[in-house]
């Protein structure tokens, strides 16, 4: 179990973390999600021990490790740039954690081969890191971090440097690995899709604070703030007079693009639906769906995701007046800022 209690960290005048408290359960796959500069990486570095908080305590399994150096914490890290030692072979890299703990060389070799098998790189032990592809380096970094049998594995943007197809493969692989090993994974990402598909729970960071901590489904369907709504799944956030006109309340609300229907302007409003008129500004084709931008008033442009197949009514031409409609229970009320 990892616990952060009121942890703060500032770099000069920039506050990277502002009194953050969170608890990560044993065996959990936990994501720290946020835009760059939101404090998520600082949070990871504090758990790893590369940095020291200005205030607050960090606990691992109930033990205060705030002042414990990284080499004495039972936590291992997969670095964003993998940080493989260029002067060592792949097997030597993987066995490094055992070497510095003075494990005998036969035992070291046996465990390194075992770990390389776990990440399906059995035949690569004698290669040098510069002879590997990005995905292979990633796996070596994983094997190297797991050989010490840590209670917690930290991953810093683990898939950031991989191309799309490889990233999807590694997502499934990481998830499978975590379930098989049963250890806690904490990973940092700025990609909400990655966080939603892999994590058991996600902490959304914004400006050094945890904006919302929830399961992926709850984050997506019940975002609490405008930031979470727009950052996770890029929901439309409607506020002010328009919100009041549509819902009768002053609080802002969020509506997902895929839950809005675009109808020709002359179609009667479906009964019970919330609706507003607007101008179709542009349409971006995304393959399975298209993304339409509809200007409702001066300040507001609503995004609508429209399935490409199965639409009964064809999309009106660009520039024409359209009607947007959604069921009242599709929108989510947000906390006012």
């Amino acid at each position: 179990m990892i616990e952060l209690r009121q942890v703060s960290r500032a770099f000069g005048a920039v506050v990277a973390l502002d009194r953050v408290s969170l608890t990560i359960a044993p065996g959990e796959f936990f994501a720290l999600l946020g835009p760059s500069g939101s404090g998520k990486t600082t949070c990871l570095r504090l758990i790893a021990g590369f940095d020291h908080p200005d205030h607050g305590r960090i606990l691992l399994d109930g033990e205060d490790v705030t002042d414990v150096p990284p080499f004495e914490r039972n936590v291992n890290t997969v670095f964003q740039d993998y940080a493989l030692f260029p002067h060592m072979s792949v097997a030597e890299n993987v066995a490094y954690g055992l070497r510095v703990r003075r494990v005998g060389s036969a035992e070291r070799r046996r465990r390194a081969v075992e770990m390389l098998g776990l990440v399906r790189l059995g035949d690569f032990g004698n290669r040098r890191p510069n002879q590997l592809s990005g995905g292979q380096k990633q796996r070596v970094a994983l094997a190297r971090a797991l050989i010490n049998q840590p209670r917690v594995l930290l991953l810093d943007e683990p898939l950031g440097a991989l191309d799309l197809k490889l990233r999807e493969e590694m997502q499934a692989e990481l998830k499978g690995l975590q379930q098989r090993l049963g250890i806690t994974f904490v990973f940092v990402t700025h990609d909400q899709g990655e966080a939603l598909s892999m994590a058991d729970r996600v902490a959304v960071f914004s400006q050094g604070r945890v904006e919302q901590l929830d399961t992926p489904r709850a984050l997506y369907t019940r975002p609490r703030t405008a930031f979470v709504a727009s950052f996770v799944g890029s929901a439309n956030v409607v506020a002010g007079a328009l919100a009041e006109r549509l819902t009768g309340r002053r609080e802002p609300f969020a509506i997902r693009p895929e839950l809005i229907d675009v109808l020709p302007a002359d179609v009667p409003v479906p009964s019970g639906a919330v609706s507003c008129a607007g101008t179709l500004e542009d349409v971006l084709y995304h393959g399975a769906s298209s993304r339409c931008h509809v200007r409702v008033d001066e300040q507001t442009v609503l995004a609508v995701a429209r399935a490409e197949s199965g639409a009964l009514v064809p999309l009106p031409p660009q520039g024409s007046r359209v009607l947007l409609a959604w069921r009242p229970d599709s929108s989510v009320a947000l906390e006012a800022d």
Partner: protein
Amino acid sequence: MLRPVATFFHGRNAFYVSLLLLPPLLWLGTVYLGSLFALLMQSFYAIDEFTARIVPEFTLATYRQLVTHPANVDIVVRTLAMAVAVTIACGIVAFPVANYMARYAGPKMKAFFYVGVMLPMWTSYLVKVYAWRLILAKQGIVSWGFTSLGAQGALDGVLATPVVGGPSLASSYIGMFIVFVYMWLPFMILPLAAALERVPASLLQASADLGARPGQTFRNVVLPLALPGLAAGSVFTFSLTLGDYIIPSVVGAPGYFIGMMVYQQQGTAGNLPLAAAFSVVPIVLISLYLALAKRLGAFDAL
């Protein structure tokens, strides 16, 4: 106007490269390697014992004289020992400085250190050597400092060491060693700092993360990756010490060094073949040193 020229060169890479390489290769080939070759030739020429004239006949007599004459062997051993000691000392002194410059210094401190390391190289070499003679002299500031601290005995004890000691620092091998280390230190610090700067901080974090204490990280990660810089720096300090003739003639004990011998043999003594043979010694020693460094894997991380 230049357009047709640019168009002509575009796509003719080999021609372009050879055109660029021609002047430096000509310079290197004729002036540099040519004169070196002429020098090497001299070492195989005979010398007429009576008239001291050089006879262009092939002989190995000069080399025989070099390796059999005990005084000549002494000179080579003395120079080699000094070069090894100076190189090791430069490495030890330079490492913390270079490591600080590369890893811990902020931008301002870094600039300050780079200027500080290079500043002494902007002054005349002779001025610095003579300044050191005054600093290390019997009545000099170092001796004064020891006396005022009441540690005169310690200095005397060090100077009483056989072979490397002497009547004062300025007239002992210890003093010469200090001046050599001072003089060549920048040549060790700069390549070492460059090599250390290329080691990403994440490698050190990864090492600590995997359980290595700072000492283990230094031995297993920092040192192997800094080895190319250390090798480059040591080639400078080693070869500069082997070839220098001014420091041994201004500071230190009266024993001869290779550089002094070359200077004397080709000048006053007029024995060009022996001077040439002596100047081959550093070339051979440095080649051996490079071969050894390569075998030990100093260039693997390049």
